[in-house]
């Protein structure tokens, strides 16, 4: 019994009681001390019992001295003073080891009273709210993780962050340019990446404001191009923001005057850029993108502008993507589109215009598909080579083959260039996808597009493959689109187009990146034109310049087996394809603005087929930025 009680309760021994009594000057008998000790124990327990009640009602788990004193007070016992301090009291043993006491130092009251360092006191009691949003199934999302974290940054970074975001989203275009440039080259802002990504994810909240969307996309571009940044998994977030701009029926699209098409084009360009340069950071990104594009495309409920975005996006991802996703889906999609295009009612005018946009985008994508496919077939050897590089690239996560081919790969003399182009196209292997033979594909496409396809396709360089110049070179001009070679054709077709071209300082974003392959020298010299020389002077990759050079002699289409009725200006269609390639190849390289403006094209003979092309939506204002204009260029406007 005794043992058990000892385990349960603190006991006051009779010796202690006797000692206490002694110190109070009372002599206690043994008997008396024992009885007293027992009673003291009981009273202590009683007090402990009742003071726990105060603790419970104060909703605490910790019993305080205050609780105990309250219990004492309510049972008419004097409270024990002096133990209310928050800090623990040191409990010491005396020298003999038998004696324990609480250290109670003397305090100099005068010192305390006259002390000049007045303690600050404790912080004001306050209430803060924290919200857990339940999604109905019980999952919890905590609110606003990022903004609170911003506060933990160093002041400098914080200031930088504020200045940059303010400049980019602010009114001053000059300031914005500076900010973007800095964002693109600053090597010390890696810590801010999450916050910029967070800012960019704000696209969803400004979908009504094209200007802001544009700025945010520029921000993406700067971040993507910054060589010092490792984007890591933030790529995913960036991609989703960009995809939003490509695919979503933005609020700004409601007003037909808003040129959201350009925005989508730009975003698509950016997407391919991110994908080729940083695609390796996130596994499966390519598939995810393709899937979401496919989903949008196959959703008839989505507005046409979304479909347009999907097509442009696929186009930007390369012809393989087009072949894999767009081509098989085309028959199903065509019916819808046809219905839209055939509706001539006034109320349908706007939708119809949108439909033409989509039509144009599909046409462009499909053309390049045909062309690239033809090309890949025509140069099996190259193709193999490219496939290799491509697969290498694929191993690295689909990074652009155009980029990936290290200089060595290009060393294959003149073909290097072509190979690099093809690599670009072939770089995105899409597993278990059964290729359709080229003629079959052509036939099918022809059934949709009729002559407009045939015309454009055939406008390519001469049918006979035996080119007097290396096929690669032929193609160059097209890819390089902007290239001088192409402009003559484009100019004829659509005024806006040419305008864009001439404006295009887009060199900066474009693929200058490739290091000049040795082959260039070999290939270049023969064909170099006067203006190409200027280009060459620039540090552009030799291949590029080579392409530019070749611009003129594009008559040779190596592989074309289709007899094209007309021998129209060959450049036309190829320009598009070629340009695409060029885009794809651009890597993340320092911005280069060196660009030789092309002379305005001479008058171009009207195209015979021009009338067959659907005339689609008009772009009200000339596109301001080269970047934006890329894709709109591709469309027969």
């Amino acid at each position, binding site marked *: 019994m005794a043992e058990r009680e000892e385990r349960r309760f603190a006991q006051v021994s009779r010796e202690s009681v006797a000692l206490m009594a002694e110190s109070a000057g009372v002599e206690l008998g043994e008997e008396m001390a024992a009885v007293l000790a027992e009673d003291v124990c009981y009273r202590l327990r*009683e007090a402990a019992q009742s003071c726990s*009640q105060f603790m419970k009602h104060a909703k605490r788990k910790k019993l305080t001295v205050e609780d105990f004193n309250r219990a004492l007070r*309510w049972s008419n016992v004097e409270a024990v003073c002096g133990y209310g301090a928050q800090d623990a009291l040191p409990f010491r043993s005396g020298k003999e080891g038998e004696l324990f006491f609480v250290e109670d130092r003397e305090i100099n009251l005068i010192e305390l009273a006259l002390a000049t360092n007045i303690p600050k006191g*404790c912080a004001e009691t306050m209430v803060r709210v924290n919200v*857990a949003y339940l999604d109905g199934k*019980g999952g919890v999302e905590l609110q606003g993780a990022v903004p609170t974290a911003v506060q933990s940054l160093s002041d400098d970074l914080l200031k930088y962050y504020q200045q940059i975001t303010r400049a980019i989203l602010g009114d001053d275009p000059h300031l914005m340019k500076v900010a973007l440039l800095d964002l693109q080259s600053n090597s010390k802002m890696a810590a801010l990446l999450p916050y910029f990504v967070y800012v960019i994810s704000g696209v969803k909240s400004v979908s009504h404001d094209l200007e802001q969307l544009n700025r945010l996309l520029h921000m993406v571009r700067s971040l993507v191009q910054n060589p010092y940044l490792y984007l890591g998994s933030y790529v995913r977030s960036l991609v989703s923001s960009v995809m939003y701009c490509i695919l979503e029926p933005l609020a700004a699209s409601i007003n037909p005057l808003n040129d959201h098409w350009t925005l989508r084009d730009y975003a698509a360009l950016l997407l391919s850029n991110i994908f080729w340069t940083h695609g390796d950071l996130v596994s499966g990104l390519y598939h995810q993108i393709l899937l979401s594009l496919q989903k949008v495309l196959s959703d008839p409920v989505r507005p046409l502008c979304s479909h347009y975005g999907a097509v442009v996006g696929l186009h930007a991802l390369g012809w393989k993507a087009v072949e894999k996703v767009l081509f098989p889906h085309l028959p199903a999609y065509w019916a819808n589109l046809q219905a839209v295009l055939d509706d001539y009612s006034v109320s349908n005018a706007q939708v119809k215009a949108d439909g033409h946009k989509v039509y144009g985008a599909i046409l462009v994508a499909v053309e390049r598909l045909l062309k690239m496919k033809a090309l890949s077939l025509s140069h099996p050897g190259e193709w193999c080579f490219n496939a290799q590089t491509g697969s290498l690239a694929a191993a690295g996560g689909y990074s652009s083959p155009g980029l990936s081919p290290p200089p060595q790969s290009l060393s294959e003399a003149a073909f290097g260039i072509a190979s690099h182009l093809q690599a670009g196209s072939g770089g995105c292997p899409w597993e278990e996808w059964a290729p359709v033979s080229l003629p079959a594909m052509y036939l099918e496409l022809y059934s949709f597009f009729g002559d407009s396809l045939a015309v454009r396709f055939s406008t390519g360089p001469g049918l006979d493959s035996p080119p007097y110049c290396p096929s690669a070179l032929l193609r160059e001009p097209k890819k390089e689109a902007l290239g001088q070679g192409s402009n003559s054709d484009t100019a004829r077709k659509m005024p806006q187009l040419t305008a864009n071209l001439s404006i295009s300082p887009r060199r900066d974003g474009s693929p200058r990146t490739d290091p000049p392959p040795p082959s260039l020298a070999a290939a270049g010299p023969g064909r170099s034109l006067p203006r190409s020389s200027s280009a060459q002077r620039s540090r552009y990759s030799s291949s590029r310049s080579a392409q530019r050079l070749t611009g003129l002699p594009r008559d040779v289409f190596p592989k074309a087996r289709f007899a094209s009725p007309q021998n129209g200006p060959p450049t036309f269609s190829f320009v598009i394809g070629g340009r695409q390639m060029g885009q794809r190849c651009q890597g993340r390289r320092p911005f280069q603005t060196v660009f030789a403006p092309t002379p305005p094209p001479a008058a171009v003979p009207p195209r015979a087929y021009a009338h067959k092309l659907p005339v689609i939506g008009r772009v009200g204002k000339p596109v301001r930025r080269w970047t934006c204009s890329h894709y709109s260029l591709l469309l027969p406007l």
Partner: protein
Amino acid sequence: VKPGSAGSSKSAAGAPEDQQTLLAVLQFLRKNKLTESVEILRREAGLPEDALDTKGADCSAPSSGGTAGGVDGLDAGSLLSRVAVSSSAGTPAPTKVFLGCSAMGVHHLWILSAAVADDQPDVSVVLSAYSQQGDPALYKVYYSDLKKFIESVLDCHRAELSQVFYPLFVHMYLELVYNNHESEAKAFFEKFSGDQECYYEDDLRVLSSLTKKEHMRGNETLLDFRTSKFVLRISRDSYQLLKRHLQERQNNQIWNIIQEHLYIDIFDGMPRSKSQIDAMSGSLAGEAKREANKAKVYYGLLKEPEIEVPLDDEDEEAENEEGKPKKKKPKKDSMGSKSKKQDPNAPLQNRIPLPELKDSDKLDKIMYMKESTKRIRLGRENLPSICFYTFLNAYQGLTAVDFTDDSSLIAGGFADSTVRVWSVTPKKLRKVKSAADLNLIDKESDDVLERIMDEKTASESKILYGHSGPVYGISFSPDRNYLLSCSEDGTVRLWSLLTFTCLVGYKGHNYPVWDTQFSPYGYYFVSGGHDRVARLWATDHYQPLRIFAGHLADVTCTRFHPNSNYVVTGSSDRTIRLWDVLTGNCVRIFTGHKGPIHTLAFSPNGKFLASGATDGRVLLWDIGHGLMVSELKGHTDTVYALRFSRDGELLASGSMDNTVRLWDAAKAFDDLETDDFTAATGHIHLQDNSQELLLGTYMSKSTPVVHLHFTRRNLLLAAGSYAA
């Protein structure tokens, strides 16, 4: 608003002994020169003036009939100051009338009880029953003999008969202690305390520390144990078995204890299973007697006041001014009256007098209805978002929290005696201007209510100073003009939220007041404290209107029924009692918790009650049938907060274990099988479906959940202070 008289007042003159008791009290008062009290008591009891004088001669023949009738006439004006003298106390000691175990009485004689409170109840009287003793050495033999018998009976009876162990054990132990057989008592305790149910652990701890007769004096828990009979429910068959056994063995010692200290509620039918018994046991004084829960309870909701029609008109005007469409109103009106047309379970509208609605109340009602239309319907598939209000820098000093019904204000009671009020909305808290400034205001202007506020005083929070001890409970008035707080200093204070000053200090408890709450209609409020009683007050009376006595230990929490006709109290004696505000009677006793009850919540429809205790369990009760409905297990520490969602679909519970849990209340109530047998016997079969009913557990960051509140749109607000 002066309450009009309502209901019928009980006749003061009951059985002759009651008269005698009264006379004794009067005599006592006179002896103590409390002539005023004598007068009041005499008048209210309806005794003739000469009753006392003639007492010696014919105390047994008071004239009751006529005077009883007179009571009604006399007190017609002051409705709530009626006296219904307990009919059950029956103890000769005068104090027992007021402090004893009677659950029945409404005693307006609080002055009296205060006056005699310092007199300890006569322990010798109370304990005298223990004086008869047998051979102390035989106690063990008796007990183990019984134990052996009970262990050998059929399974179906064993569980029931095992209930006898604990009360027998306690009483035998106390007898030993009382008769100074200390060592035998200790040995007895040592031998058998391990056999007792684990949920009696706390009581056993108290018992074990008590080893001397002197200790019993002043130990209130034990006095209560002694004076109240421990209630057991046993089937007739089991009881016969036990009786036969004890008589065969001539085990008089035990038989005497059973006869004197136990109340065995015998029922016909199948013996209950162990789980059934365990569900209901655990309280300090056993289960509730069946008849204790037989009274009719009007748990239905009151009709929305008649004024609703003019209210709608006004509202319409108001809306027109705002240029809003008219047609919405009539629809709402019809909807409102349809749902409230006839509820057979609702009390009469004027069963207790309620304050009239003011214009501002009507406006608030309109706001409420508007908000309700936007309410999110919660359910198993649709859980609410939770906002957690964390009190920072409170240094574990936060003791109570309340939100206004519209969730615009939050108030906290602190251990440092302060009450702080925060505005949760951007609207700042402002005081009314001083009297001098008020004189300058154009009182005719439309925005006079705005003009009386002093912009200079605008701030996010205000601190109310006045208490001299930790503030254990706070409650906003429904109109948001007042705040109640109760404290360890024994007072309940009423604060104005217009001037942010204290208006009244209600003194009466004299001991720490653990909880207080406003009636849902305002005006009345209830408080409960360490003195084991709950009191009903009206804001304009400085004395309580009712005293609800009956709990055997502290009243730890008090809540008003949504129809304001009932008050529920939870206590450290581990029982919950429902009191009728009109009569002051205890109409329900719920047992089943195994620890002090710390929170209670009525379902919005008034039919159900939820309770949470230190045992970490939440129990659901059907008020109409007086039955336990469900047991929600999951919390690992004291449950301090409970709240039903606005539509009653969900129950949220908050606990010391830093979690908020959501329970599917609708399912728990639907599953309830209320066949006649269950209702008649009160024997429930609880399935253990806590896991099924638990919809979610949400952790806070080491912040115990002290309060929960559903906004009018069913967003869940939780509050607590960060415990570093």
